[in-house]
C-alpha cells in the first residue's frame, strides 16, 4: 500500500469536519493519519471510550463519523468492541454477512493506561481482531487536565500541581506500549503525529494484522501542555528528537526502531516548549528532577535500542 501523500490525499476522510475539537488538537490529526492506513473496500466500526474525541465528534443529533460508531462508557471500549467483533465473526460464520470489516478504537490515555486497562488486557488476551489506538496526550484532558498513568514525571496537572512541597507529578509514567507488547499480540507500535508517513505505515500494518494491534500515538494537547496551539506538530516532533517518545514497532515479537534519531537532543528542549514543565526551570533544586527525567528517557531509549538490536 502506498504512503505517498498524493495517494493518501485522495482517500476519503472518515472523520468529517464540523466536530468541536479544539483548534490545534493532536487527537484529530492522529485519527486522520491512522485512518489513512485503512485498506480500501472495507467496512469500518469505530469505538471511543468517554473522552475529548467522543464528546467533540458525536454531539447529538450530529455526528462527525462517516462510518458506524459506538460509545458505551469510559473503561469498557475494548470489551464493547470485543462484542462487536464477536458478533461480526458469528454472523460471518453463519453466512449472514459477506462484508470485510475492520474495527478500531480511538481512546485517550486515561481510558487506556488507567481505567480501561483491564478491558484492554482482556481483549488482547482473547485475540479479538481490532486496532486499538491510544491517542496519548498524557493526562485527562476532557475533564480539565488531571494526571494519568501516562503523564510524564515533573509535569504540572490539576491533580499533580507544583507547590512548596511538590514539583508536579512525582512518578514516572507507565510504559504501556511494553506492557501491551508483553501480551504477544501480532502488532504493537509507538507513533507520533509529527511523523505522518511512519504513522500511516504503522496503521496499514495494524489493519492487516491477523489479531489485535495496538498503536500508542503521541497527540499533544495545547490546553493541557500549555504551548501555543499552532505548535502541536512541532512539540510532537521534539518529543521524537529528544527520544522522550521513541518511535518503534513490535511486529510478531520483533522490535524495530522506525524513527531514526541521528543526534539525540537533550530532553530539556522538549520540556521547555511546554508550560506544564515551566516550574522545573524556575527553581534551582528542580535541576535534580530534570536530571532524573533525562535519566528515565535515556534508560528507556537504550532499552528500546537494545531490543531492536541497534546498540
Amino acid at each position, binding site marked *: 500500500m502506498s504512503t505517498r501523500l498524493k495517494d493518501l490525499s485522495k482517500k476519503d476522510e472518515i472523520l468529517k469536519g464540523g466536530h468541536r475539537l479544539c483548534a490545534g488538537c493532536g487527537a484529530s490529526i492522529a485519527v486522520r493519519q491512522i485512518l489513512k492506513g485503512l485498506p480500501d473496500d472495507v467496512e469500518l466500526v469505530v469505538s471511543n471510550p468517554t473522552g475529548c474525541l467522543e464528546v467533540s465528534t458525536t*454531539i447529538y443529533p450530529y455526528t462527525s463519523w462517516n462510518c458506524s460508531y459506538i460509545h458505551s462508557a469510559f473503561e469498557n471500549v475494548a470489551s464493547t468492541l*470485543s462484542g462487536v467483533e*464477536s458478533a461480526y465473526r458469528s454472523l460471518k460464520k453463519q453466512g449472514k454477512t459477506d462484508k470485510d470489516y475492520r474495527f478500531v478504537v480511538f481512546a485517550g490515555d486515561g481510558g487506556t493506561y488507567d481505567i480501561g486497562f483491564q478491558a484492554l488486557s482482556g481483549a488482547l488476551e482473547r485475540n479479538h481482531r481490532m486496532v486499538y489506538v491510544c491517542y496519548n496526550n498524557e493526562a485527562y484532558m476532557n475533564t480539565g487536565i488531571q494526571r494519568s498513568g501516562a503523564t510524564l514525571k515533573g509535569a504540572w496537572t490539576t491533580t499533580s500541581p507544583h507547590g512548596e512541597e511538590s514539583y508536579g507529578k512525582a512518578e514516572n509514567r507507565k510504559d504501556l506500549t511494553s506492557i501491551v507488547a508483553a501480551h504477544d499480540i501480532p502488532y504493537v507500535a509507538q507513533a507520533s503525529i509529527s511523523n505522518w508517513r511512519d504513522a500511516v505505515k504503522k496503521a496499514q500494518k495494524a489493519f492487516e494484522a491477523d489479531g489485535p494491534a495496538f498503536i500508542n500515538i503521541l497527540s499533544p494537547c495545547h490546553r493541557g501542555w500549555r504551548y501555543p496551539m499552532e505548535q502541536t506538530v512541532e512539540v510532537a516532533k521534539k518529543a521524537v528528537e529528544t527520544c522522550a517518545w521513541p518511535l518503534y514497532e513490535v511486529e510478531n515479537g520483533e522490535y524495530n526502531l522506525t524513527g531514526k534519531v541521528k543526534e539525540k537532543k537533550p530532553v530539556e528542549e522538549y520540556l521547555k516548549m511546554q508550560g506544564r514543565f515551566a516550574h522545573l526551570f524556575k527553581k534551582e533544586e528542580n535541576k535534580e528532577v530534570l536530571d532524573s527525567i533525562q535519566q528515565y528517557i535515556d534508560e528507556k531509549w537504550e532499552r528500546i535500542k537494545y531490543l531492536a538490536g541497534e546498540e
Partner: protein
Amino acid sequence: MAIENKSTVAYVGTDAVAEAMRQINPDVVAAYPITPQTAIVETFSTMAANGLVDTEMVNVESEHSAMSATIGASASGSRAMTCTSSQGLGLMWETLYIASGLRLPIVMPNVNRALSAPINIHCDHSDSMGARDSGWIQLFSENAQEAYDNTIQAIKIAENSNVYLPVMVLLDGFIISHAIERMELLEDNKVKDFVGEVNTPYSLLDPNNPVTVGSFDGLYGYYFEFKKQQEEAMKNSFSVIKEVGEDFGKLSGRSYEFFETEYMEDAEFGFLVLGSAAGTVRHHVKCLRENGIPAGMIKLRTYRPFPGKELVEATSHLKALAVMDRSDTFAGGMGGPVFMDLRSAYYDYDKKPLMTNYIYGLGGRDLSVELVQQATEEMQDIVRNGEVKQTVNYLGLKE
C-alpha cells in the same frame, strides 16, 4: 389443549437456563463465572464447544466487560446474551443503564444471590432489586421450569419493536439454580419458531446504514426525552408481556401473566411473594384453606414493569396483606422494595387492606413453614383487631 411431543426431564435450574439458551441459539454470549451462576456458563460453553449452537463465546475478564461486550454484540444486530449473579450484577451496574438507554434487547438470566458485605453466596434478591430502576424488565421465576419458560419468553418480549428493552430473568440462587426438579422441555424447532429471527432496533454492521450509537447529549439536551421514551417502552411492555405469556401458553400449556393468584377470590388476608418462596407459601396457604382459614396468595412474576393497578385490583378486597421481601432498602424503616412499590400503588385508592411487610431469607436464611405460620398468626391478629402493630417485620432473625 393437548401438547404433543413434550419431554420430561430432571434438571437443575442452571441446566434449564442453559438448555433454553441452546434452543434460542444466540449469536453471541459473553460471560464471566460467578457463583451460583457459573454452571450456566459452563454448561453453555460445553454446548458451544460441541457445535450445538452458532454462538461466539466471549470469555471476558469481568462482568463489567461481559455486559459491555453484550452491548457491543447486540448493537451489531446480533442476538446477544449474558448471565450473572450478585457482585457480578453489581459490577455491571453502570452498563445496565447503557443497555437499556441504547434500547438493546439483551436477555440476561441473573441467579439471585446476596450482596457483600459480609460475603455470602446464598440467595436473596438484593442484587436484582438494586437494578430495579435501571430500565430492565424483570421476570421472577418460582422454579427451574419457570426459569426456562421465562428465558424463552424474554427474547420475544425484549425484541418486540414496541419495547426494545433488555430483560432480566431471575432465579433464586441454589434453591432453583442447584436443586434438581422435574420439568418439561419444548422441542427445539418450536422454540426456534417461537423466538423467530433476531430483531434489534439498529445494527453497526449494516454497511448501507451507518449509525452513531451512544452519542453525547451535551449541548442540545435530548436526554430527558430519551428517558421518557424508555418509560413509554416500559409501559408498552405490559401488553407485550401479556401477549407473549398467552402465546407461550398455546405452545406449552403453561401460560404466564404478571402474577399468579391462589385462593384470592374469597381470601380475608393474603401474601404477596416472589421467586422460590412462593412454593412454601402456596403449600402453607393450601393447608390453611384445608383448615377453613381464609388465606390467599399472589406470586409476582413481573416486578418491572410493576403491575401496580392490577395488584391493587387483585388485593383490595383483603382485610390484610403481607408483602414478602427478600431484600431490604435500608431506608430507615420503610421496608423492602416490593412493599414500598405496592404501598405507593395503593395511595390513589380508598379501599385498601392493612399492609405489613415481612423481610425474610436474607443471605439464604431458610423460609420455613413455621415462619410462614408465624406471619399467618400475626395476619390473623391484624384481621381480628383491625390494626397493624408493626409494619415492617424481619422474619426468622436469630434471637
